[in-house]
């Protein structure tokens, strides 16, 4: 068993523990509709976390996803008259394009993406306000029933939550089994090393940022369609949740390590926790404290495990030297 499998199992264990602790007090955690709702609640942060996770694996971080999702939400509702599917496709493509442009600038400027995307985070939010005329935009109420199919459940899945799961599998496959995906891991694990070995830096950066933006766009559009409206101020908190999911899911901030499946585990760990605490009727600061505590716990555990493996490796190197 590789160390990565081990760490993923440990994370899975943590997720199950959180689930069981809360399930003991919340009956709906066992019921089919309850699980369906939990899955649904993970869609927004989940789809976005997949994209952000990919940029983190590349050793970058896309901070602009929240604004991108809000922008996509406004755009998709405004395009609703042309039909939902065309609107969705246009929005996702457009966001993907914006993301590619952003990735290209980051590559070309050779600048830290955290610096650059703080700028786009602010600018895109402003643009969203401008595009929406600073008002929440709505699907006409007579048409709102048209979006019902997005909330319909098939067993425990809805279309959005199935989309999330399919996306996770797809992106996981992409990241592990394709040249472009491996390039993302390579430049995250060692930018200069990968470049010296002949890996193009431009392609993986552009690919990671355009996937991240396209997924943020998809999440924003899907969620806005489901609720039938989009607010220019929406999706502000999603970045922190997505990044937290990635971190709990084992994606290293330094890049190059982690897996998209791990992100899913991290995501459900916080969803179980946050939804559970809210469902118990506890005030917000309890959610806040619990999330913070969980994150601190995970990173300290990680630091400890890392320390121990380094010691072991050193000891092993000594005995085999």
């Amino acid at each position, binding site marked *: 068993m590789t160390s990565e499998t081990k760490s993923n199992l440990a994370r899975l264990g943590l997720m199950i523990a959180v689930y069981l602790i809360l399930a003991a007090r919340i009956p709906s955690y066992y019921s089919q509709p309850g699980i369906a709702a939990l899955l649904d609640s993970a869609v927004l942060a989940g789809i976005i976390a997949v994209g952000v996770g990919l940029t983190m694996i590349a050793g970058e971080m896309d901070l602009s996803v929240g604004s991108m999702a809000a922008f996509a939400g406004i755009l998709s509702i405004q395009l609703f008259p042309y039909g939902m599917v065309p609107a969705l496709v246009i929005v996702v493509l457009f966001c993907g394009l914006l993301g590619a442009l952003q990735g290209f600038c980051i590559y*070309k400027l050779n600048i830290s993406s955290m610096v650059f995307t703080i700028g786009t*985070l*602010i600018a895109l939010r402003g643009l969203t306000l401008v595009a929406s005329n600073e008002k929440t935009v709505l699907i006409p109420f007579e048409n709102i029933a048209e979006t019902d199919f997005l909330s319909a459940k098939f067993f425990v899945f809805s279309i959005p939550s199935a989309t999330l799961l399919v996306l996770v599998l797809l992106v996981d496959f992409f990241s592990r089994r394709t040249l472009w995906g491996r390039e993302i891991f390579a430049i995250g694990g060692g930018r200069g090393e990968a470049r010296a070995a002949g890996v193009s830096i431009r392609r993986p950066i552009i690919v990671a940022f355009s996937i991240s933006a396209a997924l943020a766009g998809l999440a924003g559009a899907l969620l806005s369609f489901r609720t039938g409206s989009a607010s220019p101020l929406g999706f502000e908190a999603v970045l922190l949740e997505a990044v937290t999911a990635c971190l709990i899911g084992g994606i290293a901030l330094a890049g190059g390590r982690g897996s998209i499946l791990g992100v899913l585990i991290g995501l459900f760990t916080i969803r179980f926790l946050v939804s559970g605490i809210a469902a118990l009727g506890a005030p917000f600061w309890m959610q806040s*404290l619990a999330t913070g505590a969980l994150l601190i716990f995970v990173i300290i555990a990680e630091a400890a495990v890392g320390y121990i493996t380094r010691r072991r490796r050193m000891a092993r190197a000594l005995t085999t030297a």
Partner: protein
Amino acid sequence: MTSQDVSHRAKVTLPKTAYGLIAILVLLVVASVTTPGFARVDNIFVVIRAASLTGIVAIGMSYITISGNLFALSASALGALLAVLFALLTAALGFAAGLFLTLGIAVLCGLAQSVAISLIGNPIITTLAFGTVFRGLAALSSGNSILRIESEAALWLGTARPLGIPTQSWAFIIAAILSWFIIRHFKIGREIVLCGANPKAAVASGLRVGLVTAIACAALSIGVAVMAIMTVSQFSQAKADLFMGYDFDYIAAVLVGGIALRGGKGTPLQAALGAVLIALLQNFMLLHGLSAGVRMTIVGLLVIASISLFHILQGRGR
């Protein structure tokens, strides 16, 4: 986390603060030509006042950045916690005690974060987690109510204008000069810069990296405390939802000031200039009656443009 290759090319020799000054001058000229009422002296004071509190925190944040710890995401939440605690302590023990205890607690919060950063090795995650905890504690200790204080001294601190300049602006100017002086002329300042430049070499040279992180975190916490105390004093009240969503403002000021995120370079003065530049632009747009969306878009573009410019001027693009 940075995408730069480690390359050392020739640098443009003009100090980066000069670019900030030039940008401010250009904006000033353009603005004063196009905006009636903009170039008046009192409007300049208004802008500096508007930049003051953000600027003080940005100055603290620049210590984090220069010391090689990127940035902290817990400043706004810590601000809320400190505001609430300052109000509680002042109400219970009086202004002086409230002031010093709050500063003390701020330093402790900074130290706690620095210990965690040293253990975990990642300032962003650590402060992300601490931020949620601070906000939770702020809500918890405020009991979800508005905390009012009645203190003449606090009111003076929050609203007085010695020599016609608001206390907040005094604090900002003093903080900028003081922190520049510390970085430039104090031994610990040099240590901060060196630790940011290369932490491993700093350890090997016997520099106190742990202490440096602690000082940087404490500097930010003190900046946050000053902001919190002055805000509470000005309005004689505190709430747990103060400063919500401000973190990116502080970071934007640091970035617009042209401080390299990789650490080891730049001075707190640049963060102060960045804050003034953003406030100047905001003021200009406010006076032009631009809508919130347009204002935000332009500030975002300013951040992008200024960081790109600094970057290209240093010849780091591809």
